């Protein structure tokens, strides 16, 4: 399944400072649908190059990270259970505090 992932608010520093990643990822063996839970695990293994604790806590993202599936807060789509579709855009953004 083709997805576009974007990292922002400083999270891109955890994946070689690359903000946009076009990826190909398939559901777990024996499962039909790709969920956010599986995608997060995939991202942690394949894209995060340093300090994974700055991206994840437990099996979800750490506090202060917004997850947006097709420009929509993942709280509205089912969080970890969100089912992803072909060509979906998933954005991970760390909230900023500077001013």
């Amino acid at each position, binding site marked *: 399944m083709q997805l576009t992932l974007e990292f922002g608010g400083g999270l891109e520093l955890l994946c070689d400072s690359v903000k946009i990643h076009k990826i190909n990822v398939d559901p777990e063996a024996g499962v039909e649908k790709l969920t956010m839970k599986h995608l997060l695990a995939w991202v942690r293994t394949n894209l995060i190059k340093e300090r994974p604790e700055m991206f994840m806590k437990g099996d979800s993202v750490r506090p*202060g990270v917004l997850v947006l599936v097709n420009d929509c*807060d993942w709280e509205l789509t089912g969080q970890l259970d969100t089912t992803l579709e072909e060509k979906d855009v998933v954005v991970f953004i760390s909230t900023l505090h*500077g*001013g």
Partner: protein
Amino acid sequence: MESNGNEELSRIIDELKSLKTEKSNIEHRISALEAQLRKIKVKKDDEMPNSNGSCTSTVKSFVDSSFGHGLSPNMIYRYSRHLLLPSFGVQGQSNLVKSSILVVGAGGLGAPALLYLAACGVGRLGIVDHDIVELNNLHRQIIHTEAYIGWSKVESAAAACRSVNSTIQIVEHKEAFRTSNALEIMSKYDIVVDATDNVPSRYMINDCCVVLGKPLVSGAALGMEGQLTVYNYNGGPCYRCLFPVPPPTTACQRCSDSGVLGVVPGVIGCLQALEAIKIASVIGEPLSGRMLLFDALSARIRIVKLRERSSQCKACGENAALTQQQFQNFDYEKFTQSPLSTSPLKLNLLTPTARISSKEYSEKVAGREAHILVDVRPTHHYKIVSLPNSMNIPLPTLEDRLPEISSALKKEEERRGVNTGSSACLYVICRRGNDSQRAVECLHKMGLTSAKDIIGGLETWAHDVDPNFPTY
């Protein structure tokens, strides 16, 4: 000669200071008198519509009483371009002049926000900040000018706002925004603009807005990115609905550490002014339940849909009902594990024997002691300025590059012909003396037990040893 020059210098500085104080006092007095005058005029017009029978007076009172929008002839002229907008018009402007807006923070976000809010004719504009204007603020905090370096940001911002628009009321709150004064200050305003730069302030301002039922226009900027949204508006989510748990302190970068392109907070601050104006004048759709993400480098703006108000929210949820008392007793620094003030962190990880002062280090250099100096700052910091003969090994790469340090020590010993038995010393420096301590801890663990850090880093070096050494 030189002492005469110094005397002359301090005389000029003193005179400038006293003249500036005088100027500020006069400006205060002028704006107070103008406000008084306006009040008297309005009262007079109300009491005696056709008092002196002059043509202008008759016309003026005719305008005031017949059109009922409360805009004086002066206001009609000043805000005419607003009035000409069909979607804004006299109703929008009339709402605006009756509104009051509090801006917390007169920094990179607050600077443009305040200028636009003053210019557009908000009735009462409050400014909160406890900080002073510094030279390294001016690249982004465009409300402040060189003449105000060393002055309070609130005074500087208020003077700039008054010079743009002397007809509005500007209230100076020259104090840090804390739980002890927040309720009292905020209760006097309709709308709050969060233009602060740290996590505990953001939670505190949010909670105060929830307690008092005020809409909150929240902006943030760092590096090349900015974010903007409106909280606690018309049943929309609050900051805590989105971020019930504060981020780890390691994830909270500050402009003074990570840098920021000046115009980026400028853009976000302008958008904050826009959202505040929309709410105050009751036009359009405020950015509630949505967030604007601004990426300056790729020239992309994305607006995303946020979750709704959370029934579980500790501040605004169904069973929350945060009281004023609870708010005042809440420890925001403890909750977020970070300080409300933006003063830099001062770690103390090492025993005194593992540390030397910058003065002591300068004596060792002067005494030609055999040593190497490792600078553990990031490379782009090292490029700004560094001490001579230092080697740059950024902290994250320290472990991997240990062999380089060992071989440099060996070379130094050979070069200086150090006797066997004694050895070259290893000193570590960074910008402020925190990372250098972390580095020394790491070096000790890896067997380089003689490593010492230079207390207070390059900032202290500039302060105590070489005043000409650039700071940033």
